[in-house]
């Protein structure tokens, strides 16, 4: 799964630690999600969407969907 976490975070001038605090997770977790090494659970994905104020599909996309869009 791909995500736009890094871009969205940069747009808001948030550090990984800031986002981690807002999501109630560790900074390592934010880093693992951003680098695509860990896919969050559905509840955490919803929480991420709520923090950014965006629908989930504007943050996360399946690998094949992202390739098709390119």
């Amino acid at each position: 799964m791909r995500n736009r976490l890094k871009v969205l975070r940069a747009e808001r001038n948030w550090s990984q630690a800031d986002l981690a605090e807002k999501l109630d997770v560790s900074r390592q977790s934010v880093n693992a999600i951003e680098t695509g090494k860990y896919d969050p659970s559905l509840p955490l994905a919803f929480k991420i969407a709520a923090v950014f104020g965006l629908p989930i599909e504007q943050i996360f996309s399946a690998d094949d969907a992202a390739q098709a869009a390119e």
Partner: protein
Amino acid sequence: MTCETSANLKRAGARYTRAMTAAALAYVAIVAIAVYTLDRFSPPHWTVIVLSLLPMAPALLMLRAYLVFTRSMDEFQRRLQNEALIVACAVTVFGSFAYGFLEEWAEFPHLPLIWVLPAFCMVFGVAHIVIRLRYK
């Protein structure tokens, strides 16, 4: 979700360290008392059994401290713990199974079962470091 913030996790880590230190000190004290008693006196067999099982009390307190600590982790950190536990289980169980055959058939020296838990903890520690590095 029931996960905690980084600050809360740090507090949980401090609680975990305190609980583990207290349990480790209790373990050392109990083992020392048990060894002294068994060396100096000739207690009845039931007392020997009780003394032999007494170190399990602080060991179980360590397990409790670990379980409480894992509950304070977020889902990603719990995943790291789970993966390290699977590796530690696999290596320890299959390692001891293989060594059992070597003991029985190839006349390798007998190793006491007491080393299984320390071996498990050691493998868990190494596996956790390697798995953390993989996700960096």
